[in-house]
């Protein structure tokens, strides 16, 4: 079963390696991993999808927490969430095929972002199934090149992660003089 984790990490050199190395070391197969900035410059956010059963998913979460630079792990697999992948697809589109390709892109709410005499680039955002669907119908025309970002995910509703909640400091001292997150 495909699990989706949202992982907040300290924005420091080498953290991506630590996370990726953990999955390799424990023999879990990453299906998709994306990483980017958050509203706090010191925090990065990863969306990781992994094929794992429930027990494995719990162990992945526990192992991620063992990394000192990992701030928060949320397994949002069972929660209502918006999951998006972005793809750019370069399709062979000669004179006679062009209108068909444009029509198909329109049906999938893709945008044409580049037009050349022999090809088009279609940009499409959606869940993975939708992008797979467009790819399938474009295949007969000739997909010349394709790039996908991997998925990003966010829970629906007003629930937010404490790590990046406004006004929440990453460094509130506790009695040991050691500073923790919330």
């Amino acid at each position, binding site marked *: 079963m495909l699990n989706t984790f949202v992982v907040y990490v*300290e924005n420091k050199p080498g953290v991506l390696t630590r996370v990726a190395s953990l999955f390799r070391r424990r023999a879990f197969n990453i299906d998709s991993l994306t990483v980017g900035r958050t509203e706090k410059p010191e925090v990065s956010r990863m969306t990781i999808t992994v094929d794992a059963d429930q027990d494995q998913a719990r162990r992945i979460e526990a192992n991620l927490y063992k990394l*000192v630079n990992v*701030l928060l792990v949320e397994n949002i697999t069972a929660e209502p969430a918006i999951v998006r992948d972005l793809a750019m697809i370069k399709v062979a589109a000669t004179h006679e095929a062009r209108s068909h390709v444009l029509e198909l892109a329109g049906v999938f709410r893709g945008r044409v972002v580049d037009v050349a005499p022999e090809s088009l680039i279609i940009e499409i955002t959606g869940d993975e199934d939708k992008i797979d669907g467009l790819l399938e119908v474009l295949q007969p025309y000739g997909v010349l090149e394709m790039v996908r970002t991997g998925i990003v995910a966010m829970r629906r509703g007003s629930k937010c992660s404490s790590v990046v909640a406004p006004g929440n400091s990453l460094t509130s001292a506790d009695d040991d*003089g050691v*500073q*923790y*997150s919330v």
Partner: protein
Amino acid sequence: MMKTGAQILWECLEREGVTHVFGYPGGAILPAYDALKHSKIHHVLVRHEQGAAHMADGYARASGQVGVAVATSGPGATNLVTGIATAMLDSSPIVCITGQVGSKLIGSDAFQEVDITGITLPITKHNYLVTHAGELARTLREAFYVARSGRPGPVLVDITKDAQQSSCDFDWESAKPQLPGYRPDLSPEPKEYEEALKLIHNAKRPVILLGHGAIVSGAMREVHDLVERSGIPVALTLLGLGAFPASHPLNLGMMGMHGEAWVNHTIQEADLLIALGMRFDDRVTGTLKTYAPNAKKIHVEIDPAEINKNVKVDVALVGDLRDVLRELLPKIECVDRQEWLDSIDRLKGDAAVRDIQNLPDSGHLYAAHVINDLWRETRGSDTTVVTDVGQHQMWEAQYYKHEEPRSLITSGGLGTMGFALPAAIGAKVARPDSEVWVVVGDGGFQMTMAELATIVQENLKVNIAIINNGYLGMVRQWQEFFYESNYQATPLLNPDFQKVAEAYGIRGETVTQRSQVVPAVQAARRHQGPVLINFQVEQEDTVYPMVAAGAALHEMIRRPSPIVETSADE
């Protein structure tokens, strides 16, 4: 106050309570060594950096304090790797300081440059690359805190040469650790305690599985109280030996691959396993398919990633063992389980024949003789036995009765040959008043025997017992059992170890008869300086019982013709 990175390094170490470091100098760490003369810290010069890491590890295991190893960049750093992995697998708190080429040269394949933070990423609890003197104080405070807190482990701090040389304003107080993602202090929910108590009170055939966590957590008193109050018997892992006194009537002994038969049978017949600070390593479970099939399982463990890793458990109490037991203890009731204890006694009666030590003295010297005599001679005194890896390690675990925590130091998880001699040096430095004995095979000894020079240079009283059977004994045993006695690459042509010792200025002796064992041990104990005794034991002796890798825990290979003699020794 302005200080160089090198000065900050030693001052931070002093403030962390470090009195000794184990190291080896070289180009990229020279600025640090240059500043060492103004420090109160004593530097132990090793003969190979692997020795430095094992010494730091031995120091940590003997004292519970963080051990420190220092090495230069490149080969100095890579030589630490085996020692770091050893510490990682056995949750031993060490901090390794390595020099690194100048920050401007990083990535250029400069002389003696290696990406040691990359190399040690999966074998450290955490590691750091420091490129500015200003980052050093906070980083070192974090390193020590991470190494010793939660489930302890090794932390490596790689410091560029320019970070050691440049100066910055140093203020220890304001260099507070900033570890927003690090949560070493977890504790169970009240509901989980209730579930555990229910299982404990309803169990008819419970057994406690006690591991290294008891020693790390300092929970010996609480474990003792739990056993006394509940009347539940205790089986120990290799690294748990000493966490509960061997002489206690409810101590069953060591479990697992070379555990006593009755201990493994008890586990297989139990209806409840209470696992305390252990991780269900494959060496203690045998095949998981048939492991304790009728038992519910409670797992008290500080590392949440260990829960349900190998064995699926019914209740997990994630937290520090001592804290968890203190919470549980007032609610533990004594349940009468005489029937269960009687049935264990029956199992024991059937299997408790200690065949080797009951053999009449026929002139042959067995390793078990040596271990047993060593135990009898040193029992009751503060003795730390440091073992290597292989047959002698298992015989030591079987025949030396450990009453006190930290009285056995051994590489359990990684099984690192060559560990014993340097780890014993670390242990002796940490606890100079303890009598330290190295028990080591002839194979493992030769992996790190250069550290004999360190013993002499530091004037340490360490006694070394080489269990010399002229083979890589445990590998030979596997070849005998599983590879049709095809002894490929296991016979050893050894040097004269007595002469080796003497060449280093260490008193050497060779023992070939059982009658010589006790006098040799007594003479070694009396001698002021270090002593090496070469015990030439039976060559093709075998550790029994044995659970073959992948076999069920109750399917043990037993000694072919058991000697039916009652034990006169216990």
